[in-house]
């Protein structure tokens, strides 16, 4: 069998030189001790961030009108979640990489129907409120055209609505049962009961916060807080942490693509899918580096290795 030609970027020369004592276990032990000490020092010096979680209760008490406006978009199906598409619902195709509708292919596995899950179902858990029960019955019995017309009327009136003295004042005259429902939902939210109803919809034990998180993400309370802390996507926020702690700095390349054209401009609608696709290609290039001519020759050509092995070359 013919011997293949030696390729300096693929093959390594056979080392025939000296060996020297090297205590790897001692080295490892020292490393553990040093890292442990450094960890303790950093923890004592800087502690760690822990900004309390937001609740629908805090949101609806801080900015009730933002809460009501968001809840209305959940009911009439115009919120971010309601129009999201897979994996939550089939209101849209979801993002695409060219003709590839990856999200759609994977299907709707985290079913969310915002009108029912965020508004109607939680309201139905409230007992002993005859006016609300009647409103819910009326709403359930109405045609979708009828509902849409009530919702449109209420949404329009919401612009001049106010919240004062613990009550919601929206002068909608042709909104059917919607005003009663929205007032009840707001009261429920402000008491904290909505937070609870959203997580316990499937039973007592829960570890799934998909619904309250989607609901809150549709409003502007969570996002405004993030903006103030420099955490938004367009602020390279993925790398950042609450307070002034260092964050996930290693996400710099991923978050960078979102800031530059065409991802930030003409590809914007599918930016997530395209940035991911791009990052996967780059990652593949990194992983397959040893097999990629050109890329794998860079280390030999930039000669940084001469610094690392300078003793070796000096003695050679």
């Amino acid at each position: 069998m013919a011997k293949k030609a030696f390729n300096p970027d693929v093959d390594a020369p056979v080392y025939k030189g000296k060996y020297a004592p090297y205590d790897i276990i001692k080295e490892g032990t020292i490393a553990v001790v040093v890292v442990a000490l450094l960890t303790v020092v950093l923890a004592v010096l800087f502690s760690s961030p822990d900004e309390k979680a937001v609740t629908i209760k805090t949101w609806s008490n801080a900015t009730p009108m933002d809460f009501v406006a968001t809840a209305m978009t959940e009911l009439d199906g115009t919120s971010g979640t309601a129009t999201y598409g897979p994996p939550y619902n089939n209101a849209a195709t979801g993002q695409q990489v060219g003709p590839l509708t990856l999200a759609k292919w994977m299907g709707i596995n985290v079913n969310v129907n915002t009108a029912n899950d965020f508004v109607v179902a939680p309201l139905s858990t409230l007992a002993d409120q005859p006016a609300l029960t009647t409103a819910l019955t009326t709403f359930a019995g109405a045609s979708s055209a009828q509902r849409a017309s009530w919702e449109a009327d209420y949404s329009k009136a919401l612009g001049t609505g106010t919240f004062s003295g613990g009550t919601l004042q929206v002068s909608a005259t042709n909104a059917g049962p919607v005003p009663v429902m929205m007032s009840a939902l707001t009261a429920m939210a402000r008491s904290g009961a909505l937070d609870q109803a959203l997580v316990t919809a499937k039973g007592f034990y829960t570890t799934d916060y998909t619904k309250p998180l989607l609901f809150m993400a549709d409003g502007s309370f969570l996002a405004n807080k993030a903006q103030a802390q420099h955490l938004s996507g367009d602020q390279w926020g993925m790398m950042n942490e609450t307070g002034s702690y260092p964050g996930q700095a290693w996400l710099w390349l991923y978050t960078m693509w979102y800031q530059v054209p065409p991802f930030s401009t003409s590809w914007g609608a599918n930016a997530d899918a395209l940035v991911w696709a791009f990052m996967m290609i780059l990652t593949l290039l990194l992983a397959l580096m040893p097999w990629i001519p050109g890329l794998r020759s860079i280390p030999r050509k930039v000669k940084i290795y001469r610094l690392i092995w300078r003793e070796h070359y000096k003695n050679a």
Partner: protein
Amino acid sequence: MSTEIDRQWTTRLRKTVVEKLPPDKLLPDTQPAYVASWIYVFGVTTLAALAIVILTGCVLAMKGPLWWHLSGTGHFVNSLHLWSVEIFFFAMVIHLWGKYFMAAWRGGRQLTWVTGVVLFLTSVGAGFTGYVSQTNYDSQWISTQAKDGINATGGGAIFNVLNLGQMLMWHIVLLPLAAVALTAVHVIYVRIKGVVPPFEEVK
């Protein structure tokens, strides 16, 4: 003629292991003279930081996910966990740069490089699931933002970043297991192959 004992799976496994990785290769007492640079300590430092990350994570696990919000000691252990993670990534990235500039995949060491890259990805995933498992405002914001990226790939159908239980399991069971297993393969492969020799300089 091979005996029954020679044909045993157990015997064959032992022979293969001992042949590929005899004790003096697993725990060598010398290194080639060219192993003389601070760059070489970043692999071990990454390994040490991984150990501290896991140790502090285990302490947090003992008391459950909400403990650190409620107790000063818990918060301190959380700080230890966070800073050991920062050291871990710090060391790992320098390790990666070093190995790249040595082209340390040469001489049949491609698997070491590839497991390294996969370890980097696993670690990013472990860090991410950790951030979304904090059960505070940071995790709310990160998860509601990150969902769009993951959903766009179709991954959201199986990996729901808004499901705390799921994320916590990935963070404290699946990804640490993967990281430790991959690290074992990575380091054992280095021991089998030995440290990559320098480029030959043609004068």
